[in-house]
């Protein structure tokens, strides 16, 4: 469990970090909380020549109110997300999802941005980011650019980030007053999701006015269950409507397809209830 040799760099600004990434070339990597990268290094599944530790970039931590949306710094830890009032009030789904990530030790080190950049299809934060239309704000040698979640997650462990880019902020629209729930099936507490479903619903006057549903670990990246959402909007928030809509989460007859349907039904039921 000993990583290959690497150079260690500790920038103090985003611009410096971007410059270092460019200077060190393709085989350099950003390290955030290290909760996914360090195991990979220790098992020598990857051997980057340089690690650029963005742990000193205080400008990347914390959640800000930005009018219609929240800006979540990439280096905000899971622990901070769990306790942030803005997230609790305007993006409750993210809090509920983060509550299920790993264990307290890991939540103190692992970061919101790191989870998204790592793009493990079993990672829990991808599906809610997709369902909530999050937008990634990225810094690179050519300046800043914005990439919506729907284009950010490309494949297994692959994102739209170029090797010389850093995720700095995540913009999440406000979902104030929406009900939310994350229904996760994993075998033991420290294991990743077999399948999980993130749901957020807006109910007014007994009817569902808007709904978001994202699926974890069903495909090579997070999936948005558009058909489920469509079947809900404008319908009464009833058990029948939910169970009928949940059937559209997946068409196959495999175990994960079944879980996608069952857990979608449960996630929606709980989201509607509160």
């Amino acid at each position: 469990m000993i990583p290959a040799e690497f150079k260690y760099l500790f920038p103090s600004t985003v611009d410096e970090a971007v410059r270092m990434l460019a200077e060190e070339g393709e085989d350099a990597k950003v390290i955030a909380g290290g909760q996914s990268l360090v195991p990979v290094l220790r098992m020598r599944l990857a051997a980057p020549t340089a690690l650029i530790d963005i742990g000193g970039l205080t400008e990347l931590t914390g959640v800000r109110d930005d009018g219609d949306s929240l800006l979540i710094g990439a280096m905000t830890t899971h622990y901070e997300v769990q306790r942030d009032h803005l997230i609790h009030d305007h993006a409750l789904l993210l809090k509920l999802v983060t509550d299920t990530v790993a264990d307290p030790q890991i939540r103190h080190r692992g970061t919101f941005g790191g989870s998204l950049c790592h793009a493990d299809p079993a990672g829990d934060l991808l599906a809610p980011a997709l369902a909530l239309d999050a937008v990634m704000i990225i810094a690179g040698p050519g300046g800043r650019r914005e990439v919506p979640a729907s284009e950010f997650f490309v494949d297994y462990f692959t994102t739209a980030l170029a090797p010389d880019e850093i995720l700095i902020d995540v913009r999440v629209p406000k979902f104030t007053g929406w009900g939310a729930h994350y229904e996760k099936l994993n075998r033991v507490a420290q294991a990743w999701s077999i399948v999980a479903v993130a749901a957020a619903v807006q109910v007014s006057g007994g009817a569902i006015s808007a709904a978001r549903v994202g699926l974890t670990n069903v495909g090579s990246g997070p999936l948005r269950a558009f058909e489920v959402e469509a079947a809900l909007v404008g319908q009464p928030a009833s058990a029948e409507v939910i169970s009928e809509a949940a059937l559209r989460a997946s068409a196959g007859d495999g175990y994960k397809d079944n879980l996608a349907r069952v857990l979608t039904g449960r996630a929606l039921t709980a989201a509607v209830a509160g």
Partner: protein
Amino acid sequence: MTATAEPEIGRARLRKEDARLITGQTTWTDNLQLTGMLHMAVLRSPIAHARITNIDVSRATSMPGVAVVLTGEDFAAEQGSLPCAWPITEDMKAPPAPALAVGQVNFAGEAVALVIADSAYRAADALEAIDIDYDELPVVLDMEEALQDNDLVHADLGTNKCATWIFDSAEAGAGTNVEDEIASAEVVIERTFKQQRLIPAFMEPRSVVVAPAAGMYTVWSATQIPHILRWMLSAVTGIAEHKLRVIAPDVGGGFGGKLQVTPEEVLCLLVARRMGRPVKWTESRTESMLSAHHGRDQIQKLTLAARRDGTVTGLKVELLADMGAYLRLVTPGVPILGAFMFNSIYKFAAYRFVCTNVFTNKVPTDAYRGAGRPEATFAIERMMDELAVELGMEPMKIRELNWIKHEEFPFNTVAGLTYDSGNYEAATARAMELFGYEELREEQARRRAAGSVVQLGIGISTYTEMCGLAPSRVLGALRYAAGGWETASIRMLPTGKVEVITGTSPHGQGHETVWSQIVADRLGVPFEDVEVLHGDTATSHKGMDSYGSRSLAVGGTALVHAAEKVLAKARTLAAHMMECDESDVEFAAGSFSVRGTSTVRTLGDVVLAAHVAHDLPEGMEPGMDADATFDPDNFSFPHGTHLCATEVDTETGMVRISRYVAVDDVGTVMNPLIVDGQVHGGLAQGIAQALYEEATHDEMGTLTTATFADYLVPSAADLPAFLTDRTTTPATSNPLGAKGVGEAGTIASTPAVVNSVLDAVRHLGVRDIEMPMSPERVWTALQGRPDEGAGEVAAGGLGSIDAQGGQS
């Protein structure tokens, strides 16, 4: 006020070793730093079966910090063969077992080359620069296929069959003939169960340091068996035993996984001798999973004969046991330990056990918590449930009908053992009461009637097991190479303080606490005045170490005998000091007195008198130390009743344990806190076999569960609050009345969980589900689909990694 002090025996003392263990104040093997120390890294075969056609170490040798790179050829003349101490039959096939492969590898993870460097980092770096050419051979993984002998693990042996071992009650004169019972039975149940392969997963990875000094070698190892290791290292390497000192410092768990003489222990010793410098090796978790021995891995075919009224009459057990690629220390004997336990607490008239040991291209198997007994208990408890289902009887009734009644002890079993004591009725009654058995049955009926999504199951395990390994004559009869006695010494220091030396080798159990309690109780000295020394062959020169729930029943008894010797001598001296007849001396609460007088000498006074030796009775030697060695006449037989309620989500297949009651009879309890701890940990491991853990391989023989992301060890978060209680029928085979508790929880719990899950879904048409009962397997069974193999493991984070070299 000593007279009213709380008795030491039975007192729930906190463990005295914990402060240093959990605050970083102890030195684990890997913490040792010696001047001039070299570091060893091991390159392991990524391939399960191959000829090694070429090894090129030139690149690695020239890397910075590398002292030398060594291969099997370099050690061919000196490494000997790793020991197997249990040749179960005269004609058992045993392949040579080199510590470092020579010319051929037989499992993925086998050591093929060593880098010796000035740091662990540089040693790991250089591993990647060793070039090896492999010529792949057909891989043998499946035991039934292996027995066809189409492809051979060891071509020289001419077969993959290692040995067949048979016990037959008719031949042994312990019962009738099983074939007759089957032929005349009203009901015959035949089932096949799979005991999946497990990985012991001790917390502290293995680590070895060897320091050479002027022809003497000190070996530190995270081992359960320092004494056996010393003997075996001497036998394997030819280094004289008196030139070897083995130290097991504090060791972080073993579960049988450190009951081994490992390739790396031998190699560190040989490298230290070659280099004349200290050498350290510490494994990574993945390395541990790829190379430390595994456990279980049996296919069990059972045939049970019974009458329609539920009386069992005969039991036939046909086992296939996977040895893996080599025979390690007790590999072939592990399934044989189960031979005596399949009949369990039931009165079968006839019993036959046939075990066929098989070689495959996998990591060798060996002892893992329970070693043979969990497998047996699982099989018989599953069969009792199958019989109950077949006859439409209540599963507890069928057990009650067949078990040995409390008034029938001592009882000679059909497997040839004598159970000395027990009370299955009492343990069961207490468990049923704690569990709320009847109410749960009613709840279950309600959920069935309502067709609830979450169904409720109730599982029973009324078990016994054998501990206190072991009477030496029995081990001899089973062709085991060593004895089963244990030893203890008491050193009475001039200030009245006490040093205890034990031949047992605790690695997490809490012997220091319990041994101190025993001595405090027997000698009337304060608990704090006792220090327990263990695990160093220089202080504890002999012993048979710790495994098989033997330490208290055997080693604790040796300690009692040593204390009796101290007291006997002290009494003689006290009489001399008080100028009375020895028969008038009374001993209580640490003091001698003359009956009917106020004359008193404390044990401390007497010990000092013995030490200064100014005035001793004629012929008495100075000093008050004593040694004792105890060889038990019989095993001890813990038993108990475990009841498990599970909730099975029929839509997802997820199983949740909603209630778990364990009522164990482990004999007289020295320290209830420690007993509870052992039961809790044991339950966790038994439940893990039922629901979570499984070592799996791909078709190339690569272990696909080589990290804790893939091999699912449950934590407290996944387990219910256990309801534990005890009944007590003391063992008659030792003066403490202790039976042993190290393995009971593991042995009992697996079938309780599995029976419970099946009970929840049987009415939905499910007949069996393989372990571990993953949600995917449970769901698949509920769909009426065949089990496609391993359950779904979410490939998060790391995914599965290949069996790659050593430190990587």
